[in-house]
């Protein structure tokens, strides 16, 4: 559904995207992660015809983004990071304008507006001015709008940014409902790594290059072993001691304590607790998360 080959984009002397290639299959949820400034937005803008590529080839739904812009535009729906609703108009007026801009057949407009509003639970707000909506309602309306023309690919650029956790959960419920119903391909960027877990595959981009691309499960498996979060009375001394006495895959010191990566946490902890001389104040064993994957691949937290 999305084919990207050797995509490059330079702004004057700065190379924002350095020859990345990937494909997204039909019906897939594709998570696209990376720290700020990694080239994510640039890539999304190129994929959605908002930005010209410097070299390479990008095809969406079989159409070339440079040569068949309008065909591509008809095939995609975008939920932007920032609000792009006309707040002075009502929900219905916003949706109707979208139908007209995307040439939704006249006969089916009303039915489709009702349909998408039902998906996001805004049926009762049809004639309300968007200005009066809460942040979550606006987001939902925007998602509804992005679906009006039955896009083949839906781009979700930080769809839940700035929303409270409850609303975030709701938004994802709607998005998954949709995917089940329409078998839509979704291209997702997000800062919340727990949200990225719903992706079928994840690409991590850093410094304009794709440094990892796999299913969330395999990405986490690649890290190998388990993660132990450790707090001691003297973290500095503890990390030194750990490096001398124990065989760990990785030990990193950070503000809140020490993160250890070990092959088998059960075996490790029993000997570790006996032999470590620095007093332990807190210990937490967990399976690796995408955050750990991200940290080990880019050396940064996603929010940095």
């Amino acid at each position: 559904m999305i084919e990207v080959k050797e995509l490059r984009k330079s702004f004057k002397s700065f190379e924002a995207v350095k020859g990345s290639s990937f494909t997204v299959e039909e019906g897939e949820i594709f998570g696209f992660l990376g720290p700020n400034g990694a080239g994510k937005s640039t890539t999304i803008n190129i994929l959605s015809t908002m930005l010209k590529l410097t070299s390479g080839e990008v095809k969406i739904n079989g159409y070339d983004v440079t040569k068949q812009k309008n065909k591509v535009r008809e095939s995609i729906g975008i939920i932007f990071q920032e609000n792009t609703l006309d707040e002075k108009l009502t929900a219905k007026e916003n949706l109707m304008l979208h139908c007209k801009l995307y040439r939704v057949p006249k006969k089916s407009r009303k039915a489709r507006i009702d349909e998408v509003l039902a998906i996001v639970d805004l049926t009762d707000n049809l004639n309300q001015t968007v200005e009066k909506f809460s942040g979550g309602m606006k987001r939902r309306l925007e998602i509804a709008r992005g679906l009006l023309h039955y896009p083949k690919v839906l781009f979700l650029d930080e769809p839940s940014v700035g929303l409270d956790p409850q609303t975030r959960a709701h938004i994802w419920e709607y998005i998954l409902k949709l995917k089940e119903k329409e078998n839509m391909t979704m291209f997702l960027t997000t800062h919340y790594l727990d949200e990225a877990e719903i992706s079928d595959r994840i690409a991590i981009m850093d410094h304009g290059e794709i440094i990892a691309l796999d299913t969330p499960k395999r990405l986490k498996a690649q890290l190998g072993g388990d993660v132990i979060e450790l707090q001691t009375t003297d973290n500095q001394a503890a990390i030194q001691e750990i490096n001398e006495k124990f065989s760990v895959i990785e030990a990193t010191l950070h503000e809140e304590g020490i993160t250890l990566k070990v092959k088998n946490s059960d075996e490790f902890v029993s000997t570790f607790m006996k032999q470590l001389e620095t007093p332990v104040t807190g210990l937490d064993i967990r399976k690796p998360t995408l955050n750990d994957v991200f940290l080990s691949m880019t050396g940064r937290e996603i929010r940095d």
Partner: protein
Amino acid sequence: MEGMIAIWQRDVMKFFKDRARLFGSMTMPILLLIVFGVGMGGSMESLMQNVAGGDLDFNYVAFIFPGIVSMTLLMTSVFSSLSIIQDRDFGYMREILVSPVSRVSIALGKMLGSATVAVMQGLLLFLLMPLLGVTIDLVSFFVLLPVMFLLACAFASLGLLIASVISSTQAFQLVVNAIVMPMIFLSGALFPLNNMPAWIDVLVTLNPVTYGVDLMKHIMIDVDQLSREVYVEMGLDLDFFGIPVTPLGEVLFIIGFTAVLIVLATLSFSRANR
């Protein structure tokens, strides 16, 4: 085509929702009508009596009125087109730009929207006519409408081009001072421009507002009834670098001006790189 109409409709729809703007933008033209019409009217009228050398039925406000209407068209169209900048700031422009609507349709839709709003705003001024002692017959009124619309389209496309060049709302005032105000003052809209220095004369001749105002004056004022002296004195005998100006010539000049600006505005919309 439908995309163009949708963009057009949106601007008109928003105009009706914003009553404050509707009446707020009326204050400036009314003020100018009082200052130039009533204030300057007395001296202009006695001056014209001298020129004509006798009794003369002359209402200066009737001369100013078409000028003030054109000014309203200019201000409203340019400002409506500048709403694109707001659309850009509030994000709506992205929704339009990623849609499959052709870039020409976007430019034309925006132009038609601004022009429609401007004409409606201009027509509101006609409600003041009885108070000013200005009259217009029905036939002239229906000739005037398309002229007003054409003029508004020209100004709207100017606004579009400006909007594509400047990037912030803060630059609004600058634009008004540097472009819109000079265009009004150098058009004969508010007072006749006679015996100007040559360089100002060139600006007046190249200013499309000049011809818009002139067209409107010729439609709204019973020019045949004026003596030759008054006609000349009121700046109604325009020439384009020596060639006498005809109404058809004026219309063509305005159409040409609009076409060029729309092409330029479209090009700026098609630039994928923003």
